[in-house]
């Protein structure tokens, strides 16, 4: 049985906060309060873009305790698959959208004695909500925030004003200032937790130096939303529903499945949570795994695929859907 817990929301405000970054505020159409949530959570936003239904995950950046509205920030992406372009150029104040309940795949470790947050660019958004929660609970934290230029970086001024320069450190590429990762990670008290959100390269670099410095794996946390990469067009045969569908080059399998009216489970739509794991019945080419969920042996087995981000190199895949 599937239960629809999506909420219908109205765009209450749109604010241009930096070069290429827009903040959207959502309020419920029925006037009811939105659920409170935990810092680090995201929602999946469903957009009707003409005939196409787009669904993208966005981190919640407003105060987790504020049930009057949710805020997200959207970066204008040059090679947008459509969602970012839609939210930047088509969406207007007063429009309605559907959003999922909050989902947290990047939570604060409640045991942490101190929390170090490292953000790159738009990766700042989950930390906005986290810092609100940490500050309210009077817990120790510091933010290290890398931006390309001062005008690209969203929110750094207001964050410094709110939490002070001792807790909010800003590094600007254009000024040749970079996060001194080794220095920061080399001098932390026992019980410190590290959280990284930003481009893949940054996450890899920071986690790598933490590992080198002997940080326990349990104290390292990261979040990266993978956009489904484009690829060749192929066919997917859904064996249980008896349908054959076409997966276009800028579409994920999951999106094609949904467009065909077949229900498939999902949560993050970014290859991280494992919810959309699907059994592969057959495939005439190689699976191109793009997720960060499946174990290497699962990927090698050719029996499982995360349909939110992964594709195939052949012309047809048969799925247990």
């Amino acid at each position: 049985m599937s239960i629809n817990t999506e909420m219908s929301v109205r765009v209450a405000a749109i604010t241009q906060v930096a070069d290429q970054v827009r903040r959207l505020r959502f309020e419920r159409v029925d006037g009811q309060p939105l659920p409170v949530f935990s810092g680090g959570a995201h929602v999946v936003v469903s957009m009707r873009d003409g005939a196409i239904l787009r669904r993208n995950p966005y981190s919640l950046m407003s105060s987790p305790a504020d049930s009057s509205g949710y805020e997200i920030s959207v970066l204008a992406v040059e090679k947008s698959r459509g969602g970012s372009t839609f939210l930047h150029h088509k969406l207007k104040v007063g429009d309605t959208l559907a959003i999922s309940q909050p989902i947290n795949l990047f939570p604060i470790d409640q045991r942490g004695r101190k929390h170090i947050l490292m953000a790159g660019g738009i990766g700042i958004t989950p930390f906005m909500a986290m810092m609100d929660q940490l500050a309210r609970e009077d817990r120790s934290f510091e933010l290290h925030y890398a931006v390309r230029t001062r005008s690209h970086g969203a929110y750094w001024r207001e964050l410094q004003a709110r939490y002070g320069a001792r807790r909010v450190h800003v590094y600007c590429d254009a000024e040749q200032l970079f996060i001194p990762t080794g220095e920061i990670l080399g001098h932390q008290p026992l019980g410190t937790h590290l959280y990284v959100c930003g481009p893949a390269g940054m996450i890899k670099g920071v986690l790598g130096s933490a590992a080198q410095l002997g940080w326990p794996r349990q104290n390292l946390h990261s979040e990266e939303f993978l956009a489904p990469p484009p690829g060749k067009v192929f066919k997917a045969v859904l064996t249980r529903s008896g349908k054959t569908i076409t997966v276009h080059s800028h579409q994920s399998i999951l999106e094609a499945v949904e467009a065909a009216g077949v229900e498939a489970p999902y949560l993050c739509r970014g290859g991280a949570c494992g919810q959309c794991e699907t059994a592969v019945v057959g495939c005439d080419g190689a699976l191109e795994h793009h997720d960060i969920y499946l174990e290497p042996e699962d990927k090698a087995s050719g029996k499982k695929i995360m349909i939110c981000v992964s594709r195939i190199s052949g012309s047809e895949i048969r799925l247990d859907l």
Partner: protein
Amino acid sequence: MNIAFNDETFRDDFTFRNSPQAIRRFPFPFHEDSYMYAVNMEPHVPLARDSAYGTLIDVDEHYVAEMRDRALVLKEDPLRYQALPHMMTAQWDTLELLMEQQAAGYPELFTLTRDGDRWHWINRPLNIDQRFTFGDAATLPCEPLEYITRQAQGDFCIVDQRDGNLWMDAGMVTTQADWSLDFDIGMNFMEWHGPVPLAHQIGVFDRALKFLLNLQQGRPVRRLNWTMTINARLDTSPENYHKWGPDRATVTPENVGNKVHLRCELQSLWRLPRSNGILFVIRCFLIKMEELVTVPKWARRFHRVLRDLPPELADYKGLTRYRPTTVAWLAKYDDGAPTSPGFFPD
């Protein structure tokens, strides 16, 4: 809904019994004539109002007596309530959830009024009128989880989610089927399920853990579990084994009907919003064999389930000693007729 609360005991003279209405609403756990472990989880949504699924947090005729029994257990053994320090946010999440659900399901019994963080809670059956500040534990007589679970039927565990696992880091456990919070506190999902036979081999716990790690806010789930208890004792804990263990040797063909109980746990799991923890509610329902057989379908089916249960399961559930006597007694109520599918009485 008007509930007449029973004046009854779950120890010493065991005056517990179910009214005819309570028998009809018992959450009978077998949908077919046999039983095996499965990841039997389904959405926790309300069903018929006169069933145990009528509200998401059920309150029934045993409420007042169960809360009195819980207070007695805690007085003898305060460690039945424990919460690790990092669980305070989850404690408040739980208090909110239970107050909201009870007030929504039973407005004539409970009232919750909120003005920002200033809350006012009225519990009429227990004669409680409490004003407090949400988020400030100093404004309640005890920690928020202990406070609210002294006013809610069932055991409550809060698990913390981290490192791809779930950790038993807080709870109120006084109506348990032979497990101990004091022993399990701080363990992860695989550790605390360690003793269960057969289920590990068929991958039940791997699948269940994967499912729960993705449990969503606003979409609670439930499952049923069951065992049997001799005498209507809620507190069958390892700590008190010396009190209830010997009871299992007292079953005779003459006393099965009154002494042997089917014990059903209606378990519900809820994602908590502020802490991202999961609240695990384990609500225990008891029914005597003589009450159970007043529903012919349940009499036939339970006879068959108990008779055909794999011996490992009977051993793990502690039924081995009195199973033959009980099966023989139940056989009188099983004419071999087919039973209809599903849990509910015909």
